[in-house]
């Protein structure tokens, strides 16, 4: 009987069949196949991947034709693993075992009728996918799939990462600094009892001594009845202030700003009393205002306490315009239009002349800031003084001339106000500072008042303060220069 070998599994099939009865592969010779019927499956080049169709048609079990023809290992050595060993009985039942059994030459192949062959399940004879070089995923969501691209290219050799030491390399000095910082931070969080201060310490005695010395020095003139300190000579700026007031016309309109705090009213009242006294002597109408909320009350108190003898009446000889809010912006607004910035008095009555109302006498004929005959600012803060100079003083110059600006300043503000007086041209035309300036002004006018009353006590207090500063400075210098103190790095004397 003529046979035709399957080109796929190499097994003999009866002539005339078109499909291999073993592997169901086509038995027709493909173009270029061996005409003798002993066709071999196309072999791929070593190492090259075989085509998909070829691998699908190649039977999984059973040796390839070339494998069947392969010679046994030379030298009669030990057979390779899996070769020449008798398979156990149970293993022969497996397809691989059957394949091995098919190698047995004595077994005759069963001839199946065509109707039975056609009933064979395809899966039973379908070729298993060949074992290829494709990797099999064994884990993860792709487990069981073949040929999946590897997550890491296998061409890249994996190597152990370099090991770095976790130990910080620091010097001994750095370690000491770190320990010091750590101790400081830890001490911050620790609860420590507050050391109980002694009821009486050298510091207390020093404080009482200084206070007692100052009080005694101040009270000494009053206790002894001595009036030995002559009033100070008037400096140029005080003389200028006096000249400006003395040259005021009768019924002059003067703007008087009370820009100081209650804490310094003692000094400011003494410094300003002689100046305001001179203004009232000249019969000037006063318009009062303040950029401090407490200023309007201080103004009323000042007039009632220090100038009661003049008998100035509110809304007649003076008008208290009250509080001007806004700081420098408010001052700029007031310099631009006084009527809009402060339309009413402190009591709430209309202050400025308007159609249908005459306005207060102190503001008659005043349309702008430059219409005042004099501007006097009582100020204890250099910033407030600067605000008046910067915002208001430039608007005091008109084509008709300039309204002079006179400042009565606290002694603590004098160093920062004096440059405005000494500049050329002067931005402040007259300056009276502190009790000393007030006393000098009182000497010029020949009248008494607060600065004259305070002058003796003020002189004695200043002398005592200067003496204590001098003694304290000398003592500090001696303590510092002592060899023992110096060697200890300038520690504070206890």
């Amino acid at each position, binding site marked *: 009987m003529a046979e035709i070998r399957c080109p796929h599994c190499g097994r003999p099939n009866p002539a005339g069949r078109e499909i291999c009865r073993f592997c169901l592969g086509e038995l027709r010779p493909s173009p270029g196949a061996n005409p003798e019927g002993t066709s071999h499956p196309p072999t791929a080049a070593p190492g090259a991947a075989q085509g998909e169709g070829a691998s699908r048609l190649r039977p999984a079990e059973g040796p390839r034709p070339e494998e069947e023809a392969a010679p046994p290992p030379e030298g009669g050595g030990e057979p390779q693993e899996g070769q020449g060993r008798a398979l156990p009985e149970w293993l022969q039942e497996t397809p691989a075992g059957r394949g091995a059994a098919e190698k047995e030459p004595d077994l005759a192949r069963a001839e199946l009728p065509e109707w039975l062959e056609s009933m064979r399940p395809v899966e039973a004879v379908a070729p298993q996918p060949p074992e290829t070089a494709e990797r099999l995923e064994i884990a993860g969501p792709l487990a069981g799939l073949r040929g999946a691209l590897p997550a890491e290219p296998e061409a890249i050799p994996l190597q152990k990462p370099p090991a770095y030491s976790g130990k910080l390399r620091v010097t001994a000095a750095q370690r000491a600094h770190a320990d010091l910082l750590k101790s400081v931070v830890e001490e911050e969080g620790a609860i420590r009892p507050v050391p109980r201060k002694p009821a009486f310490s050298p510091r*207390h005695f020093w*404080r*009482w001594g200084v*206070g007692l010395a*100052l*009080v005694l020095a*101040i*009270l000494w003139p*009053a206790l002894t009845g001595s009036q030995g300190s002559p009033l100070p000579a008037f400096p140029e700026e005080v003389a200028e202030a006096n000249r400006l007031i003395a040259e005021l016309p009768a019924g002059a309109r003067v703007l008087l700003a009370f820009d100081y705090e*209650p*804490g*310094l*009213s*003692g*000094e400011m*009242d*003494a410094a300003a009393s002689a100046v305001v006294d001179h203004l009232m002597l000249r019969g000037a109408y006063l318009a009062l205002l303040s950029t401090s*909320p*407490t200023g*309007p*009350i201080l103004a009323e108190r000042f007039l009632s306490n220090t100038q009661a003898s003049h008998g100035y009446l509110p809304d007649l000889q003076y008008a208290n315009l*009250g*509080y001007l*809010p806004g*700081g*420098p*912006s408010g001052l*700029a607004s007031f310099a631009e239009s006084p009527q809009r910035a402060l*339309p*009413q008095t402190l009591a*709430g009555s209309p202050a400025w002349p308007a159609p249908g109302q005459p306005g207060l006498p102190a503001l008659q004929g005043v349309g702008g800031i430059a219409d005042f005959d004099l501007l006097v600012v009582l100020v*204890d803060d250099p910033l407030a003084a*600067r605000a008046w*100079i*910067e*915002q208001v*003083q*430039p608007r005091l110059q008109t084509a008709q001339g300039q309204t002079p600006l006179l400042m009565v300043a*606290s*002694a*603590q*503000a*004098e*160093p920062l106000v004096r*440059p*405005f007086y*000494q*500049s*050329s041209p002067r*931005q402040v035309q007259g300056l009276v500072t*502190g*009790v*000393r300036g007030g006393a000098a002004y009182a000497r010029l006018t020949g009248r008494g008042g607060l600065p004259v*009353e*305070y002058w003796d*006590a*003020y002189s004695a*207090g*200043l002398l005592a*303060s200067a003496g204590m500063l001098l003694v304290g400075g000398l003592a500090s210098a001696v303590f510092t220069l002592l060899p023992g103190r110096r060697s200890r790095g300038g520690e504070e004397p206890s």
Partner: protein
Amino acid sequence: MSLADLVGGGLAFALTLMVFSYVLGDNPLFRVAIHLFIGVAAGLAGIMTVNSVLLPRLVAPLLASRREEHLLALVPLVLGVLLLAKLSPSTAGWGNLPVAYLVGVGAAAAIGGAVGGTLLPQVSASIDSFDLRVALQRDENPGFYLVNAIIVAAGTLTTLAYFHFGARQRPDQPPGRPAWIEELGRIGQVFLAVAFGVLFAGTISAALAALIERLSFLADFLRQLTTPPVL
């Protein structure tokens, strides 16, 4: 002395002594007096703001009969209400508009005033201080005037040099100021020390005047108490 004067004077006398008690150290009497002063000052400031600002400039225009005043008063009213929104973090954004307005106007006034009222006039005065014609106009000794001008210029320059903090890289040394600026800065330190000393002396002088005023008040009050009334 009336009853009101007696009560007011006695209260002021007691409060003065409570403040003076600080010479013995911090104590409750001193703290009570300080708290009282702060509270009274804050209350007075609040009343003054209401009476001098809110009532005449906001409430009165709103109650006025003229429509123009109503419209003009709406601007500060709206800005004021928006400023109140700053009280709550959730509505604080609404308060940015009035704050921006306040800051912008304040900065413009302050900067414009500082440049035009202080910086330029003082620079001009420093330059003109070398003009001896001014000394002759003021009837001053030109020699002293010139020396004074030189001291002012030296003080200005050296003090500015002291506040120059620019440093340069130097090889093998930490960055530092040029040597000549360092020397000028040392001289500027002297001027700064003198300036601070003068400010300190002024502060002592002002505090001394306040102490004299208080002691004078205590003495006057005791004198009035001990003096028999004139019938």
